């Protein structure tokens, strides 16, 4: 049967046959790098189109429908436009940092791809502290935003960057705590191990009340961490024109734009892995026949299906709720999400010790 893990091991064996282990490793790294960049490009195109379609349908509009059949080539045309646009650097800016910032944002998003389990036995880096690695590296992305805001030498950019910094630093706490609930339940930090622990049911079902609370808090916190509406204070078109990327144009702007969508994909992939079982098919306890039928659907389809469901959920938030004010934003985090998730951690510890999960 053709699967991602089969292809990966075939390529690995072939490379080891034709060249020395060091060169095989180098070639594998190159292949991984190219395929990650390819995945980025495809995801960028697909997610931008998806966002515009979802937004349109939720606002009783049609959305892009002119370029190509059903408007499918719209984001390709947008990319072409951004590629040929001039990437300007404003006069009074810190040119080195200004040009570095989009790449920092992009590299942080790229590093986050490493521990995600895309299909069964198909992972770039099976690191045993996967979840901790993700929450560590995701804190790098704020640096890119802060750098862009400072280097632009623009009041709007600076304010956007400061808001974004305060927001990401505070929402990281409740995102981390809600991730911890699943770590406590499964007893593992590696993403693949967490997926394997959901063989007889996903954690959102097995962990019942605490897992559901954690899932809701996780979705709210990651929406804030990726700077998307209703938490898009860092961009806030109506107040700050475009926040930290006001001064960016052309491909440099496109990199920020792409990094935002890649971050959305990654946090949804993490959410799908932790709460919805990652690539694990939908299994109900010991129902052999039903589980067997579900196993026929390839694991990569399960993974991408769940991830895109969560992405749709985040888009649904974006096109439904109005933007929060900065004090409301911080109130929500420090007075509601953080106390509730701390209480939830205690609850889930009791559940895990007493083995009350299914």
């Amino acid at each position: 049967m053709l699967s991602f893990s089969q292809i990966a091991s075939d390529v690995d064996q072939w490379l080891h046959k034709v060249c020395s282990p060091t060169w095989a490793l180098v070639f594998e790294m190159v292949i991984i790098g190219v395929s990650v960049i390819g995945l980025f490009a495809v995801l960028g195109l697909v997610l931008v189109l998806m966002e515009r379609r979802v937004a349109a349908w939720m606002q009783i509009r049609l959305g892009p429908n002119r370029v190509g059949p059903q408007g499918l080539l719209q984001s390709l045309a947008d990319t072409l436009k951004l590629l040929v646009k001039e990437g300007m650097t404003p006069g009074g800016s810190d040119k080195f940092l200004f040009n570095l910032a989009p790449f920092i944002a992009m590299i942080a998003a790229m590093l986050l791809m490493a521990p995600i389990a895309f299909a069964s036995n198909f992972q770039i880096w099976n690191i045993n502290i996967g979840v901790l690695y993700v929450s560590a590296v995701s804190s790098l992305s704020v640096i890119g935003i802060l750098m862009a805001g400072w280097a632009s030498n623009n009041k709007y950019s600076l304010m956007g960057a400061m808001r974004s910094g305060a927001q990401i630093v505070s929402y990281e706490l409740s995102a981390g705590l809600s991730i911890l609930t699943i770590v406590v339940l499964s007893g593992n930090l590696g993403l693949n191990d967490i997926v394997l622990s959901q063989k007889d049911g996903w954690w959102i079902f097995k962990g019942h009340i605490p897992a559901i609370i954690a899932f809701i808090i996780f979705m709210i916190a990651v929406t804030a961490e990726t700077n998307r509406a209703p938490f898009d204070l860092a961009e806030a078109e109506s107040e700050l024109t475009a926040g930290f990327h006001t001064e960016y144009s052309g491909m440099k702007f496109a990199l920020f734009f792409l990094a935002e969508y890649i971050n959305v994909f990654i946090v949804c992939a993490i959410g799908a892995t932790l709460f919805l079982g990652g690539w694990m098919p939908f299994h109900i306890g010991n129902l052999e026949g039903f589980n067997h039928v579900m196993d026929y659907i390839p694991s990569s389809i399960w993974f991408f299906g769940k991830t895109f469901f969560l992405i749709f959920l985040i888009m649904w938030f974006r096109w439904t709720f109005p933007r929060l004010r900065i004090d409301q934003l911080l109130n929500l985090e420090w007075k509601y999400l953080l106390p509730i998730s701390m209480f939830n951690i205690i609850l889930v510890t009791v559940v895990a010790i007493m083995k009350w999960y299914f």
Partner: protein
Amino acid sequence: MDGSTIIFYILAALTLGSGLLAVTTRQIFRSAIYLLFSLIGIAGLYFWMNYDFIAAVQIVVYVGGIVVLIIFSIFLTHQTGEKLPSPTLSRQLFAALAVFCGAALILVQLYHFQYTGTTETALEPNVNNIGMQMLSTDVGGYALPFEVVSILLLAALVGCIVIALRTKPQTN
């Protein structure tokens, strides 16, 4: 020279080079960014040594916490494009003296340290072992230092709140 050594030298060059740039640049924000790269280089070295947990904690604490705080304080106190004045001669001399003394101390210690080999198998540095060791009350366990550090942090937190607390105006 194999690939691993090459990677080590790249990481070491990144750490030292950006550390040097952090203290020589005249623009304070760039200084913070170079410090960030230096700390990331150290995290890279931990990854290179397969100490994944320490590396991730290095990134969380230093990159996600301390550098962001430094950047925030720069945002609140400086302007873009401002250059710092270069330090006076006496300061430079004292700094050079301090660096020399520190380097000499470390080199002497390194020179005198007896690197004795051990036949014991290394403990696997995974999270399970780290957690067990951190909270163990046996000989060599870290439960007491861990708790003492947490009391220190609690005191710091309370202190912060006391400083930031707005005293209620007297209603007479």
